[in-house]
């Protein structure tokens, strides 16, 4: 057992028992971050802030929300929105933060793709990140169900029906997931459990693993330069701060991040106070009605690209029904990002602007996903269906081409 002496102060008292000084060094003051990065590297901290906002606002919503088909709609739209002091604030914070967190996740993800921060030892960061994306999607979907409006109900109906496409067990699985033949009380209550307990637990755990996965291979930098972190850290500690290529996480890196977070928060609160309606679909202010489908069902903006891949295939090919092709394409879209590090056949880490073919590929993918997002929102009529189809097939072809393109880049050498 450690020898305990009379403490010189609170910190020392804690240090003797919890080694807080060592901990602070490992986690903060001697965690080295490259200098050569830009504001895109601050997205991780922005995400942490948004997650905190979601948890805090969620706690207050949870005090009045009732997960029962007869009470849910009023508990949100009457009790929380009209009776509870500042109830509207928590709801709008929660809704807007949920929408924004996906925007930042996408930026975070595409930053990783652009700078090649998913390979040569950084695979686990990518994999845990994509797992987080998956769970966040489930979290968003289950949360969307809770106000029990028309969109809540019909989105739940459509999404749970997707599982019916799984061969053999499909239709039984759908009933099992719902706990009823249709989306009903049992469904609402179990998705409520997922939303407030199981999925948040999984998210918090995975976030910890995600951070830890960053520790060993270290943060990447703008030019993908391989740094000798120990040597650079030594320079910094010896006072050669200008010469050193790294800075400590705290206070140097975070102070820059706080600036980015500050700018982002201005925009965020502007949305919360003046434009919260973009995260609140008007159709969802009508109570759920299992006997009336809204004229046009669409998911929230962050799912539109994969939704468009799903419905882009509107005609059958030979004996395969249109729906099965769509489902297969949808499945493809949802797993393909997960295996990204293994599709990239170029072993060298380099930013996209130094990889001639990959650079074009990157921008094409981004444009294609924006097109898919736009057309996912439009009704599937006339020319829209064809544009949707072309965009959906392009998405798949881009990923099929990825291994070949990166291989060619590797052979051709990077600039």
């Amino acid at each position, binding site marked *: 057992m450690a020898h305990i002496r009379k403490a010189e102060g609170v910190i020392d008292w804690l240090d003797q028992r919890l080694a807080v000084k060592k901990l602070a060094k490992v986690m903060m003051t001697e965690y080295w971050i490259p200098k050569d990065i830009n504001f895109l590297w601050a997205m991780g901290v922005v995400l942490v802030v948004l997650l905190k906002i979601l948890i805090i606002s969620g706690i207050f919503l949870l005090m009045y929300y009732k997960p029962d088909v007869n009470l849910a709609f009023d508990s949100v739209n009457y009790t929380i929105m009209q009776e509870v002091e500042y109830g509207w604030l928590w709801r709008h914070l929660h809704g807007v933060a949920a929408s924004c967190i996906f925007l930042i996740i996408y930026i975070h993800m595409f930053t990783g793709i652009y700078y090649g921060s998913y390979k040569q030892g950084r695979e686990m960061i990518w994999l845990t990140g994509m797992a987080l994306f998956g769970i966040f999607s489930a979290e968003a979907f289950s949360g969307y169900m809770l106000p029990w409006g028309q969109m809540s109900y*019909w989105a739940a*109906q*459509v999404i749970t*029906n*997707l599982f019916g496409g799984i061969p053999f067990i499909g239709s039984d699985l759908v*009933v*099992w*997931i*719902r*706990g*009823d*033949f*249709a*989306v*009903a009380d*049992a469904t609402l209550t*179990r998705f409520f459990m997922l939303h407030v307990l199981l999925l948040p637990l999984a998210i918090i755990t995975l976030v910890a693993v995600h951070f830890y996965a960053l520790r060993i291979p270290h943060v990447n930098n703008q030019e993908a330069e391989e740094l000798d972190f120990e040597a650079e850290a030594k320079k910094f500690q010896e006072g050669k701060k200008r010469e050193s290529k790294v800075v400590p996480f705290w206070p140097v890196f975070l102070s820059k991040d706080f600036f980015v977070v500050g700018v982002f928060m201005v925009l965020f609160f502007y949305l919360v106070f003046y434009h919260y309606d973009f995260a609140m679909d008007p159709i969802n202010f009508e109570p759920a009605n*299992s*006997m*009336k*489908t*809204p*004229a*046009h*069902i669409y998911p929230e903006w962050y799912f539109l690209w994969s939704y468009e891949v799903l*419905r882009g295939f*509107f005609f059958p090919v030979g004996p395969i*029904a*249109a*729906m*099965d092709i*769509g489902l297969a394409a949808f499945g493809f879209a949802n797993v393909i990002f997960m295996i990204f590090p293994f599709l990239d056949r170029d072993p060298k880490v380099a930013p996209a602007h130094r990889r001639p073919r990959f650079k074009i590929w990157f921008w094409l993918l981004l444009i294609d996903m924006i097109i898919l997002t736009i057309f996912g929102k439009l009704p*599937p*009529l006339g020319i829209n*269906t064809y544009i949707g189809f072309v965009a959906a097939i392009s998405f798949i072809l881009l990923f099929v081409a990825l291994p070949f393109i990166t291989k060619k880049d590797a052979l051709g050498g990077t600039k």
Partner: protein
Amino acid sequence: MAVKKSRRDFLGMAFGGFAAVGGVLTLGAMKQTWDPLPSVQAAGFVTVDLSPLQEGELRTITWRGKPIFLLKKTAEMKKNENRDVVVGNADYSVIIGLCTHLGCIPSWIPSTMQFKCACHGGEFDASGINTFGPPPRPMDIPPFKIDGMTLVLGEEGSEYKKLVAKA
């Protein structure tokens, strides 16, 4: 030493075996906890009187949380031996009103005698057969039993079994 080691192996295996059995049983319990409740499964026999139905007019009722379309066919509508429910001397379409694509409720368009699904543009004819768009198959027929002029939904009568056999 050898004796000791094998005894330890045995303990390890016995412990592991018990833990594995316990784990599997627990998973089974969890799966069943998620199953639909018996009350949910049992709530599912609805009786409808077909006599007040007008030709060509759609009536929608609820059965097991799903909409059921009841349509007395007019002379212009195509007969469909494999799907029509014959009660008295009239033909009826009795179908589960959920689009077989992703489960939206199609609406009845009397002028064209079609069901149209607003979600992704699927179309069905008066017998519930998919004619256009993503729906992969005709709308389903719920299990029913004919009793004079009334229909019992949820029970598999001989007429229902005949239709299923034909399909």
